[in-house]
């Protein structure tokens, strides 16, 4: 079961998920067991489209910068990474485990063609920000009528 939540309560069965988790806890099934990050929904992203560039924000709390990997093609951005457990799992006694661990990948189809060579990315406080300048051909252009 994926434990990543969508902030803002977009998950319609969140209540059920909590209930399921409590049941699992009661019967000791998922206690301490590593849970894989659901690749389809993690990490959450925002895509904003400006005149000159496309801005992608990505929520990657707890992922070290070295464990993040970005791949850009003309029209897609793939965010790959590994979320590591806080320590030796054998040594830690978990009481509650809602944060996922493991490898993740998410491919975002961009709304326009971009210039991959001029892309910039930075990560601060668990938020990855990628700036993707639009390709020359994707920018608005005025065509003079002769």
């Amino acid at each position: 079961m994926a434990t990543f939540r969508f902030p803002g309560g977009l998950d319609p069965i969140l209540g059920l998920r909590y209930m399921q988790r409590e049941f699992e806890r009661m019967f000791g099934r998922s206690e301490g067991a590593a849970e894989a990050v659901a690749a389809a929904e993690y990490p959450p992203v925002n895509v904003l489209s400006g005149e000159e560039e496309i801005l992608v924000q990505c929520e990657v709390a707890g992922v070290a910068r070295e464990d993040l990997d970005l791949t850009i093609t003309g029209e897609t951005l793939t965010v790959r990474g590994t979320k590591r457990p806080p320590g030796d799992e054998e040594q830690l006694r978990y009481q509650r485990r809602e944060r996922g661990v493991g490898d993740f990948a998410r491919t975002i189809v961009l709304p326009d063609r971009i210039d991959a060579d001029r892309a910039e990315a930075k990560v601060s406080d668990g938020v990855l920000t990628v700036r993707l300048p639009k390709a020359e051909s994707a920018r608005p252009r005025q065509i003079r009528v002769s």
Partner: protein
Amino acid sequence: MADQDASVKVHVDPVRRAAPEEALRPAVDIYQEPDGTTVLLAEVPGATSERVDVRVEKGVLSLWAASELADPGPSYAPTYRGFTGGEYFRAFALSDEVDRERIEASLTDGVLRIRLPRAAAARTRKIEITPG
């Protein structure tokens, strides 16, 4: 550059921030290390250490954080929105075994880490039987 491990001040006083309405509920891990210290990890992406507040009052540990996503301006049209900034809030009942004066908190890569050391009184103590 990895984020610096910023120290977060832990308040042990009666002023408590009320739970904000519509606060985001941060995902947490709670585990015990081999020495008995309990560690709580809470995901508060986008929050800086100045915008984090950890309090202990009447046996309740409450954590609050606020994240502001960089707003690029009105010329940017949101194409897809998967998360937002906002306030995070969550509170936990503390066990009596936790030494309240020695709670430490730090913030790294958007994860708030709160160390809750065991009180000396809670450690196993062998009691000698005095011959009487």
